[in-house]
């Protein structure tokens, strides 16, 4: 039988449960664990940590994983690839080393991948003639009104491959694009060439690697989590088994999940993860290859066993995507509830009073929003109209108020100013300060492109 490699989608986001990965390790069901920790906004969260403490700025999941998961995974010969290094892969490696050393783990190589973080290079890039045009508005970055919080380039799979070629047991990368973590593993295992002049056949292999990585990168979302396709969920989700791809050298893969765990692996669950966060399916742009997903085949071979193949590749883009986070202001929100009788009318009178109080404040609120939880909280103005007799007889209703403002003082003042409505407002209001969030940072993203030759990726190896 020809060689295959088993890769598990072990983490879907910063803060995901480690239990699914633990089970995969205990059953020794994969050769590699891929932990994706970086959603679009995660880097802004990590930047806040790093500003507080220069030794932080990585996804702290790794501290737990280094205690409970990595030693057992390494003992099985499994290798772990993650972008949890975030804004500080070197500190992440030091932290993991300390935890592993304390547990007596030795003979382990930890690789870091950096060079994606260009926050301190934004001036230099502009001086070199890069206008950093906003991909949405076409404005040059010099027009930005807000201070940057982070600036990271989506980088590709090459250094992941290199690190594995050099024997890394654990890779802690910065902003390696999610699916490129998986592509790097496959390029290492099957000797796929990532750079240079590539044939159509080679491009198709890279495209397959990206597609498989895309299916793995959200963990349980590919195996029955968050699923309308398998509604009404004839399986357990409390112990959802995460997706495992057994990949062949031709780029085809068989997707499964642990039989001992919940969830489901089906053509439907893979279809719905395939469409997730894709724009033009014939032109999915990644640092290593542009992928045409319209030719893929998904075929259920047996229960919880699904074949995936057929992605096609086009040469990689000339430029890499750079996302600059910007501090725009703050958001403050709070919840209030009313009961029968007159729940709806009371909510309207309450909102009216809040608006009047806020319009008289000596500070300015840039924008406000009022949602009726249970009526239009999720779908806003698109929510279907509710019959009057239903509104007149509601058991209860929730109100969410949210405001955007420039400074923290405004957030505090706005909430303090309406607290009096607990005694002064319509009868029976229920609210607890802890339900709301005061002064949550409001960040906007400045998406742009940079020539790849200006980005210097660096691989470092640490050994214990």
């Amino acid at each position, binding site marked *: 039988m020809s060689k295959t490699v088993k890769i598990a989608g072990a983490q879907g986001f910063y803060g995901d449960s480690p239990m699914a990965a633990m089970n995969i390790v205990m059953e020794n069901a994969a050769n590699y664990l891929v932990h994706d920790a970086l959603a*679009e*906004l995660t880097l*802004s969260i990590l930047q806040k940590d790093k500003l507080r403490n220069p030794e932080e700025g990585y996804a702290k999941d790794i501290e737990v994983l280094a205690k409970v998961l990595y030693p057992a995974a390494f003992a099985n010969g499994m290798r772990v690839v993650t972008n949890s290094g975030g804004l500080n892969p070197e500190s992440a490696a030091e932290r993991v080393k300390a935890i592993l050393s304390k547990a007596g783990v030795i003979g382990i190589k930890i690789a870091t991948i950096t060079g994606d973080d260009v926050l301190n290079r934004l001036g230099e890039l502009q001086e070199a003639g890069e206008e950093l045009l906003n991909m*949405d508005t076409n404005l040059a970055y010099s027009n930005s009104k807000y201070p940057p919080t982070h600036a990271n380039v989506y980088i590709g799979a090459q250094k992941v491959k290199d690190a594995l070629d050099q024997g890394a047991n654990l890779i802690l990368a910065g902003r390696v694009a999610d699916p490129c973590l998986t592509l790097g593993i496959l390029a290492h295992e099957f000797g796929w060439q990532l750079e240079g002049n590539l044939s159509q056949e080679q491009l198709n292999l890279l495209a397959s690697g990206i597609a498989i990585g895309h299916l793995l990168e959200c963990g349980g979302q590919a195996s029955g989590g*968050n*699923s*309308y*396709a398998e*509604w009404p969920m004839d399986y357990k989700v409390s112990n959802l088994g995460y997706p495992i791809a057994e990949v062949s050298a031709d780029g085809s893969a068989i997707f499964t999940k642990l039989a001992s765990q919940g969830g489901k692996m089906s053509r*439907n669950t893979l*279809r*719905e*993860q*395939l*469409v*997730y*966060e*894709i*724009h*033009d*399916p*014939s032109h999915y742009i990644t640092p290593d290859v542009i992928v045409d*997903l*319209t*030719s*893929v*085949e*998904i075929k259920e071979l047996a229960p919880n066993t699904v074949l995936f193949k*057929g992605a096609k590749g086009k040469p990689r883009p000339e430029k890499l995507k750079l996302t600059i986070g910007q501090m*725009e202001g703050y*958001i403050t*929100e709070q919840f209030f509830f009313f009961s029968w009788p007159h729940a709806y009318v009371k909510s309207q009178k309450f909102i009216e009073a809040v608006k009047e109080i806020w319009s008289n404040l000596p500070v300015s609120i840039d*924008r*406000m*929003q009022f*949602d009726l*939880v249970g009526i239009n*909280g*999720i*779908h*806003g*103005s*698109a*929510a*279907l109209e509710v019959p009057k007799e239903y509104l007149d007889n509601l058991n209860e209703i929730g109100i*969410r108020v*949210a*405001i*955007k403002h420039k400074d923290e003082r405004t957030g505090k003042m706005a909430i303090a100013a309406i607290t009096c409505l607990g005694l002064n407002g319509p009868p029976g209001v229920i609210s607890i300060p802890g339900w709301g969030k005061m002064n949550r*940072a*409001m*960040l*906007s*993203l400045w*998406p742009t492109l940079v020539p790849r030759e200006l980005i210097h990726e660096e691989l470092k190896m640490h050994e214990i």
Partner: protein
Amino acid sequence: MSRIKLIDIASARSGDKNDVCNIGVMANDLTAYSLLKQHLTADKVKQHFGDMIKGEVVRYEWDTIESLNFVCHGALDGGASRSLRMDMLGKNFSSHLLRLEFEV
């Protein structure tokens, strides 16, 4: 003429990229897919969301998985981290679209 409820013939998943929300609509079978291709236009989707989508809606056909992908620009109140909405990530754009009905 008969009236079709989208939820009876398809499922959907939505997600965010900055201020763009994409809604993948997966037909239950080939017959459903041909109905979707014929009747579930980008205009109909945009209309169904009204003011919630400020920009253009682009539809992509995805024959091998019997799916349509709707890319909705200006759909997330400026993007997840700027949005004042409860559903800041547009996770429930899928839910709202499934409520759509159309005549065939």
